[in-house]
């Protein structure tokens, strides 16, 4: 656990005069009133009550920026030394709140509408219709089912990444070359990878991998023909890009293990197999759990490769939730329904990750 908070405890004696305090309050509340005022005027303008000719909501955005700045300055004016400390966290917090909380609330209000950007009529509240539609939508459930398959593939990725990390940690020459080479797939843009591998190397007639498959005895190699093979291909491509991430984390974990421990195990007569399972692996458990959790988080966002290589096909076999919603918007402009699907996905993820983190916490806690 990273130690946090109150490490730098300094007692300060700020003599803040009442006048200064009043100025601080005025700054904060004045700018806040400005924000509320601008937002109100804009709302009236949007509703058609006032005709100011404002084309967009930019003024409200600027007012928010002004208020955020005044809030930060006001803290210092109002609280002196304590305020200066607040200013460290405040900008990031204000930024995140504006960029996450507000859109999320806004998203909730469109999730229950029949808003379609292609239709002429505006949005209309339609209650639980979207939920009912989702319940009966086989493609959404299919996409969620696919996510389970994709998540299970992480076990294999983890095994490979661990093996590679062990190799890189061994006494080898040209370690830097191998490390850079192994790291490169992570640096490549998934879109470029989908062309480089998905569209050209796996191309059934001329692609080098198709040639290799034919040479190995596969009559008509088709990597996206049947649902199972297509899903497997996507899994392999995604694994190719993200194995380095887990590998580097595991490598860092391996390098943090003191040499004395494995040496002591060897002196006690443990073979390499035994010393790995009895010493190295248990010590690596916390790092492994962190690496796998981060990998799961990235896996749940998997979309770029699917969108660009298979577009979900054949028959939705490779669809992820993200790529499905992407097409729901791109092909049908169905903003309301798509947002609801995304919100449901978010709820599922939050529940899943909370359970997972609780379990991980229990597993990695040292047994006493």
């Amino acid at each position, binding site marked *: 656990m990273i130690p946090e908070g109150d*490490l*730098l405890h300094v007692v300060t004696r700020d003599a803040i005069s009442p006048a200064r305090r009043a100025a601080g309050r005025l700054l904060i509340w004045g700018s806040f009133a400005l924000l509320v005022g601008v937002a109100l005027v804009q709302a009236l303008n949007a509703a058609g009550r006032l005709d100011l000719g404002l084309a967009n909501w930019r003024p409200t955005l600027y007012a928010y920026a002004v208020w955020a700045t005044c809030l930060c300055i006001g803290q210092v004016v109002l609280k002196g030394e304590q305020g200066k400390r607040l200013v460290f966290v405040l900008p990031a*917090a204000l930024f995140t709140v504006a960029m996450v909380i507000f859109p999320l609330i806004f998203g909730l209000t*469109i999730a229950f509408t029949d808003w379609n950007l292609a239709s002429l009529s505006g949005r209309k509240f339609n209650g639980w219709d979207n939920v009912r539609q989702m319940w009966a939508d086989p493609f959404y459930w299919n996409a969620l089912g696919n996510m389970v398959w994709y998540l299970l593939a992480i076990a294999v990725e983890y095994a490979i990444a661990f093996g590679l990390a062990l*190799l890189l940690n061994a006494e080898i020459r040209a370690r830097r070359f191998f490390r850079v080479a192994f790291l*490169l797939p992570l640096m490549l843009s998934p*879109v470029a990878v989908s062309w480089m591998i998905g569209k050209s190397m796996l191309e059934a007639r001329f692609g080098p991998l198709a*040639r290799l498959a034919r040479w190995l005895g596969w009559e008509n190699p088709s990597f996206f023909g049947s649902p199972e093979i297509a899903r497997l291909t996507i899994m392999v491509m995604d694994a190719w890009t993200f194995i380095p991430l887990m590998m580097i984390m595991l490598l860092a974990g391996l390098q943090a293990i003191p040499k004395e421990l494995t040496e002591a195990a060897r002196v006690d007569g443990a073979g390499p197999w035994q010393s790995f399972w009895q010493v190295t692996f248990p010590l690596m458990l916390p790092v492994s759990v962190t690496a796998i959790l981060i990998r799961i988080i990235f896996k749940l*966002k998997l979309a770029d490769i699917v969108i660009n290589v298979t577009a979900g096909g054949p028959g939705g076999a490779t669809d992820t939730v993200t790529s499905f919603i992407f097409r729901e*918007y791109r092909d049908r402009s169905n903003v309301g329904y798509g947002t609801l699907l995304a919100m449901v996905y978010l709820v599922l993820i939050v529940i899943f990750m909370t359970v997972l983190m609780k379990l991980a916490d229990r597993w990695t806690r040292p047994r006493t």
Partner: protein
Amino acid sequence: MSAPIFRDGEGDLGFRMTWWASRALIYGVLTLWAVICLFPIYWTVSTSFKMAPDVMQGNLIPWVDYRPAWLGWRSLGLSPDTIGAESTVRAEFLKRFANSAVTALSASALAVVLGSLAAYGLSRFSYRFGPMRNADISFFFLSQLILPPVVLALPFLVLYKELALLDTRIGLILLYTLTVLPIVIWIMRDQFASIPTELEEAALVDGLSVWGAFLTIILPIAAPGMVAAFILSLVLTWNEYFFAALLTSTKAVTLPVMVASQTGSQGISWWSMAALSFAAILPLIVIGILLERFIVKGMAAGAVK
């Protein structure tokens, strides 16, 4: 010739055999994986210099199997004979490239500034925002990592339309900053926790303010971590496709979106696609080779406690 006096015993010979066998196995596996990692890149580079028959015959080695031609790069307007001439494709490519560079660099810089400040504050002082204490605030920031982009995508699409931020670089920069902010905070928290507080205490005693101590004492020490966070953010934002595909249409289109749109129009002009793909990944390959140390450091931070 008499037998050597000192020689390896039977047991030692067996040991050396297994040692050589394990060496061969280790290097064999390492080489195999290096080939798996590097071959797609090599394939892309070589294909960008091929002509149609070479692609169909699957020729692999330049000058032996086939004669390199500038075909792919000519279609991008980047070959030696077209580099001087006007080229709409090149202009388009450079515009996308500039968009990608500007958004990725500014978003990473903004995220590093905001994230470092927050991480430093959280690692040194205790806060209370209502019921939230330091651990909760940290969790609030880090939990943004879980948020899937698709949840924000559609609300942002509508919001940006209202704010006239659709298809602008600023809109993308703000969103990208949000997506990499938790990672920056994760890395920097780890960095600041490893710096002893005695340094600031000494600086405070010497009369510096909290911010003065942070800017003049702590920042230089934490700079390698900040570079690591910056590079990692750069990688993620440069490659980002999902938001860019939804929120840009003409002006602010980034490189991944351009690559993806070219893939759609399959004219089997593999050489030009290969050239485009390679041009899109080249900056990060260079960064990966030169700054590998920082990337590894960034990813390892937080994994080991």
